[in-house]
């Protein structure tokens, strides 16, 4: 059997990759995809601990996280389409209407 810590390390690497993507990319669609990476890393952790503790609660939480990811993707992509229609751009640093 594989120790739980190995799953934790995989999840950590995916999480950090996602954080780097959110912080550095300018394309909003890729930022959203990086958020999906982060949510996946969380799910791996939840399922790994679910097996570690021999309890299914972690898997239930992973299902709720997937539901959240679906809702977030739908609304986020809707916002991106509305924004693109108004400003003809997808760059995160040009979304500065509220900047002082």
């Amino acid at each position: 059997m594989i120790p739980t810590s190995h799953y934790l390390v995989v999840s950590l690497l995916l999480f950090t990759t996602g954080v780097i993507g959110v912080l550095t990319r300018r394309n909003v669609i890729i930022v959203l995809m990086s958020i999906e990476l982060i949510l996946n890393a969380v799910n791996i952790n939840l399922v790994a601990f679910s097996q570690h503790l021999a309890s299914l609660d972690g898997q239930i939480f992973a299902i709720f996280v997937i539901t959240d990811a679906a809702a977030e993707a739908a609304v986020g992509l809707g916002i991106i389409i509305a924004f693109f229609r108004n400003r003809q751009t997808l760059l995160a640093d040009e979304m500065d209407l509220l900047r002082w």
Partner: protein
Amino acid sequence: MTNEILFYFFAGLAVLGGVLVVTMRNAVHSAVFLITTLLATAGLYLTLNAEFLFVVQIILYVGGIMVLFVFVIMLVNLDVALHQVQFNRQTWVAGLLSFALLAELLAAVALARSYGEENWLFAAPHVPTVTAEGNTEQIGRLLFQNYVIPFEIASILLLVALVGAVVMGKKRI
């Protein structure tokens, strides 16, 4: 032994795909590598005896969310975007801080080795006893008995997201 080989294969695939998602210039390529990562994650669920989540991951993530992503990329396809700078000005600071975060979390996992009774995280996990009913039945029972109120709240969340997406997609907002 097969379990170990599968785990390292899927783990390597997931991390490699994740790195490529973040570094690719073209959003379509990023989406393809994100699909790779999601499928590899599904494989990881399989090595964790979570068969229901394995199927949900493939149907919902790869079949639902990623199709939505690819569809939106097609709708807003910009050839100009490919020739623009892809990274922010804050890239170096952000990368440095992220690696600091990674080092910190890895240190936390390594530190857990020195605590606890008999290397708890590092020993082989508790192997679930094989029961008469499978993973899906157990999850269904839990979801509709212990977690029925969160389940209903999740359905309200999905309804709100549905309305929100429709409103955002309208011609004039």
